[in-house]
């Protein structure tokens, strides 16, 4: 068959390779803007395809013409020393004034349509989320549910979400490349952005600050989780509850380092059970809210959503120490932490400077999406956050640690055991 002629086979092979690399590209490029997982990104994507196709045509046309001219009219021995001295050609010049004008008109029409479509008012029944930018972390509020959280955004599949964007300090920009954005967070105004995650499954997405906002601009990240409406309802109910850790006055002193084990060895303590890393969360037996779904399951976290920022080499982490969450609570609710953080249900912890810690144990990342929320990283974070994320307000807490902002070594501060206690408490705050 002529269909199997060599050029055709070659062409088919090339097509296969191209397609394969395109698909592989989507797998390897989790933050690509071309994922089309929301109505917003589909609209932008179709506009973008038009731009890319037209751009490619113009590019190829122009460069081919250029290279053709270079080859055809290169100086050769015997070529005329004085070629025809043309000064211009009105018809040609009108032609190539008209061509870009037509190309731009083709772009302008869908551009304007998309502007008005994407910037129109969101549906009235859209989920309202208030995004507040802080140097360098994200505060997410769900005003309809009275939920306040940080750096992790939960979005129900199929429901339009309408973000109200504002800032606490400098200008930031809210961007989840695979879902939509970006839109700036500007002082003294509230910006809006809406989209519907309607073409995806439960999944985790990376979000970024896209406007330069100071020393840790690169470290101001967040995660967005798309979950089913049922899971979302469960998550909301859990977030609405107060802190789930209430220590008894006389808790046995020795509790293991991870909260999961803590629950096993200290059954009288109503500690929410932490999953072993990689395990599906088990509903805590004594938690005040019977939440089936309290956070995105760690084992479903795609690789790209798990932060890989290294801990600074000089920062020693001792994960063998067993922390006592009750002692940890004592330290947290009477120490420096009260200056900045809120834990609902703990009367001394009401400050709004830093992220709300009521359910910090259920989060998958810490430090503005910079580190995974595991014992090792949380330990290092409490010990010396400023060595892990430049410029932040969260102070260096570990005794003997060097504070890179104040530029002194701490003579007072938490011992490693105390840090382990704080970590145990925070991990208990499911």
């Amino acid at each position, binding site marked *: 068959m002529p269909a199997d002629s060599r050029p055709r086979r070659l062409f088919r092979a090339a097509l296969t390779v191209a397609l394969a690399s395109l698909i592989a590209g989507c797998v*390897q*490029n989790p*933050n*690509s803007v071309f994922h089309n997982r929301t109505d917003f990104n589909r609209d*932008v994507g179709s506009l973008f395809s038009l*731009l*890319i196709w037209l*751009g490619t045509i113009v590019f190829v046309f*122009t460069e081919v*013409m*250029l290279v053709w*001219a270079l080859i055809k*009219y*290169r*100086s050769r021995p015997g070529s*005329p*020393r*004085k*070629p*025809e001295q*043309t*000064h*211009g*050609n009105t018809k*040609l*010049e009108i032609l*190539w004034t008209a*061509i*870009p*004008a037509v190309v*731009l008109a083709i*772009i302008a029409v869908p*551009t304007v349509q*998309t*502007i*008005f479509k994407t*910037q*129109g008012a969101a549906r009235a029944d859209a989920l309202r989320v208030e995004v507040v930018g802080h140097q360098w972390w994200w505060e997410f509020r769900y005003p309809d549910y009275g939920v306040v959280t940080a750096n992790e955004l939960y979005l129900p599949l199929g429901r339009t979400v309408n973000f109200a964007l504002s800032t606490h*300090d400098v*200008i930031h920009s809210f*961007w989840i*490349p*695979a879902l939509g954005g*970006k*839109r*700036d967070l*500007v*002082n*003294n*105004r509230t910006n809006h952005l809406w989209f519907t995650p309607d073409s995806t499954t439960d999944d985790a997405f990376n979000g970024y600050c*896209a406007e*330069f906002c*100071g*020393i*840790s*601009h*690169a*470290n101001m990240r967040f995660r967005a989780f798309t979950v089913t409406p049922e899971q979302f309802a469960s998550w909301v109910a859990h977030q609405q509850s107060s802190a789930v850790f209430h220590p008894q006055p006389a808790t046995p002193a020795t509790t293991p380092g991870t909260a999961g084990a803590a629950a096993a060895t200290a059954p009288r303590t109503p500690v929410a059970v932490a999953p072993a890393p990689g395990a599906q969360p088990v509903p805590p037996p004594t938690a005040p809210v019977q939440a089936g779904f309290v956070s995105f399951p760690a084992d479903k976290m795609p690789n790209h959503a*798990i932060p*890989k920022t290294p801990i600074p080499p000089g920062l020693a982490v001792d994960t063998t120490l067993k922390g006592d969450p009750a002692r940890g609570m004592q330290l947290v609710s009477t120490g420096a932490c009260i200056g900045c953080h809120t834990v609902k249900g703990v009367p001394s912890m009401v400050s709004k400077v830093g992220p709300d810690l009521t359910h910090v144990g259920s989060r998958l990342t810490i430090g503005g999406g910079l580190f995974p929320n595991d014992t090792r990283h949380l330990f290092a974070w409490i010990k010396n956050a400023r060595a892990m994320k430049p410029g932040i307000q969260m102070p260096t807490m570990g005794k003997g640690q060097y504070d890179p902002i104040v530029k002194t070594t701490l003579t007072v501060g938490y011992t490693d055991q105390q840090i382990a206690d704080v970590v145990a408490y925070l991990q208990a705050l499911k």
Partner: protein
Amino acid sequence: MATAATAPAAAQKGYEHEGGIWSWLTTVDHKRIGALYLYTALLWFLVGGLEALVIRIQLQGPNGRFVSAEMYNQLFTMHGTTMIFLVIMPLSAAFFNLLIPLQIGARDVAFPRLNAFSYWVYLFGSLFMNASWLVGAAPNGGWFGYTPLTSTFSPGLNIDFWVLGLQILGVSSLAAGFNFITTIINMRAPGMHFMRMPIFTWMAFIVQFLLVLAFPVITIALVFLQFDRFFGTQFYEAAAGADPLLWQHLFWIFGHPEVYILILPAFGLVSEVLPTFSRKPLFGYPVMVYSGMLIAFLGFGVWAHHMFAVGMGPIADTLFAVTTMLIGIPTGVKIFNWIFTMWGGDIRFTTAMKFAIALVALFTIGGISGVMHASPPADLQQTDTYFIVAHFHYVLFGGSMMGLLAGLYYYFPKFTGRMLSEKIGTWHFWLTFVGMNLTFMPMHWSGLLGMPRRTWVYDAGQGLETLNLMSSLGAYIQVLAVLVGAYNVLVSMRRGVRAGNDPWGGPTLEWSIPSPPPDYNFAAIPTVTSRYPLWEHHAPGTSDIPRTISDQRVPTAKELGIPMPNPSIKPLFVALFMTLMFACMLLIHLGKTPLAIAGIITCATLMTFSLYSWLLTPLEDEH
């Protein structure tokens, strides 16, 4: 009228200037000031390139730790600020200085001492800005310096250096702008009406209008920022009800015309290079002039396309999208006219020509991606990502720098009397071309795959490793290219082939006089009867690189009885005291307000004294 312009005399010896440091400090000769601009800007190019190199080492792999976050922010801020204000603008100024009087048949600029003043202000301003490195407080707010990050949230001297440094540099650009506008309007040789003016001078003329109209706006924006930082005003203080977008509007009303300030001189240079090495006149000269004017005019009406993400609303977005797309039309026309200048010609691939062709090829890419972000919804996914970094490096490196390097190879003989080596130049070109594309082409993909700009690190596993490694490898090739280029300049300055008047067979007046030209440029002011006066005498592109140089010395101005301006040190003093006056403001933030006030008053007095002494001294001896 009997004649057309002056024909070149054969193989003249270059003019020999008196040497010595003092003659350089006091020079008011536009060609020597141009050379000072050239060498200073090339030095800052090395510094700005070094900053970029460190950035690329840091980003070579994920979660890099080569430099700290603070250092990284200082590096990218200073890389941008340096390349824009200390490299591309002054390199353009070097060519303005050298070429405008030569191309219009004048003996100098309208205000020679003001011209020297512009250079000294630029030199001192650039030194002041970079002195911040020495105290470990280089600017760290980005070249765009958005408030309130740079007002309320940046204590420390970093932003002070930036604000004051830009104010100083603005004075330089404004003074040069008034000077060149007057020069071009008022010093053209007989017969050189506007539509006979060489195209480079035309682009330079347009750029001067952009300068004098755009710089006052940034001056005021910076004054507000300076007052906020030093005197507690509330222009950008959000708590007082201020709108931080005020800064963005003022900055970009300046910032977008600034883009054309950076690119139009390069457009002018390649519009000189392409005809010479195609042995054909520029295709569609009037359209090239009008499109330049149109680009400049529209350039004042598109600033908010830098702000599509700030939430201006659909109507403003539509308006600025449409005006931005309109600019694509005159720009596209220029590209096609360049291609058709070569079409049907007899193309000689000299190094200058290669760089000029590279501009046409690479600026096209930057232009197309530019149209992509003229569309606001699509721009939301592009702005503040590496896609934009790729775009403006195709425009500023692929466009401006390629054009300026074409100009460097083409006009080096007019600066120095010697030719740059074509052999080394070929290496220089190909290394630059390959390195540039390897660095910036992958950034289109890094951006669309979700890499924000101005980030100290990116995480592993985001599909960005290969692309960033490619960009870094490209940067290392560019380092090699810069070293080769620097070697070429240094060696050729001393040992290059001596150029005659007209080594390339160029069409315009600058090629009719010796290289380097005598201080009076033209013994007789030529009378111009066409756009390409020299091609009336010889076929296009017929060079006269002499095998032997005639021993006949070029006569001095005194011997010919031509009145020349006296050298003067006063412009340097005025510039110095002005810079010191601004520098004294830093003392306020060091807690030494009385000393600062005393310093400012002293410097202001000395500056005024020097200025009066300058203004009350006649430019020339009585004759």
